[in-house]
């Protein structure tokens, strides 16, 4: 089992997966988001290669209303 922190919440995965697969498996819309793992931004072209590991801290960010 892989334990991660996703947007501040504890989350677990059955096995290591790429970011791309992680987003698909969790029904997360892939447009207009930015991914940060352990405070490093992972650009979209690396989503297929970058594997989510145990204890990773993942932030998935988008734009919302604000002044």
């Amino acid at each position, binding site marked *: 089992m892989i334990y991660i922190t*996703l*947007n*501040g*919440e504890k989350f677990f995965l059955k096995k290591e997966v790429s970011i791309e697969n992680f987003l698909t498996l*969790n*029904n*997360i*819309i892939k*447009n*207009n*988001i*930015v991914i*940060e793992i352990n*405070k490093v*931004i992972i*650009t979209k072209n690396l989503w297929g290669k970058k594997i989510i590991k145990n204890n990773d801290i993942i*932030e*998935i*960010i*988008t*734009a*919302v*209303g*604000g*002044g």
Partner: protein
Amino acid sequence: MCLNLNNKSYKSRLIIGSGKYKNIEETKSALTASGAEIITVAVKRVNIGQNQKEKNLLDYIDPSKYKILPNTAGCYSADDAVRVSLLARELVHDNLIKLEVLKDKETLLPNEKETLIAAKELVKLGFAVMVYTTVNIKLAKDLEKIGCIAVMPLGSPIGTGKGIINSSNLKKIIHNSNVPIIVDAGIGTASDATIAMELGCDGVLLNSAIAMAENPIIMAEAMRYAVISGRKAFEAKRMKISDIAIPSSNKKNAIS
């Protein structure tokens, strides 16, 4: 006549926020009615488990018509503001950022020290920084000197709608500045925006004044004209104030 920011020219001197609207459709209608060409957005976590059909704010704003201005709202330290700015740059593929580092959750006033540290770092990283600040004359100049492209002093605290509470300092900041000065926060109604522009501000940034009005779309339109009106009055250079009454009608050939 135009507002020049980051090598781009804008016809409207009004910048609006996208927060607190009932829904994205209302945000879009207000944006259209306001005539603004720049709209601020916040950079926040995605709602995990979202509905796949749920529209994202960025899907509603045509990037060929509007400039998206991400902010660092919710940051209380320079480190956090830099981190959010980097995420924002990746999200909208642009180096323009509204830097906002706050002191505390009660007053929502800018943290001057952290704002200055963050601004320096962001300029170094190649950002075009529009910085939210207090009405502090020296700090405004320091932020300009380190390379911010616009300095944005508050009218009054965020969300209060109290208008321009320190017009004398604001005037001094405008007078001393070589970069656009944009009043950000505190505008409550159209006359507040007009006053800011009459003082010589280059623009006005507001959110709650439109979003929290009973009719946001009509208020958006009011703000559009308020900013135009204030700017024109500033350019026209107002009449001198007199302590004595002076008749407007010609005194010659009076009947009595």
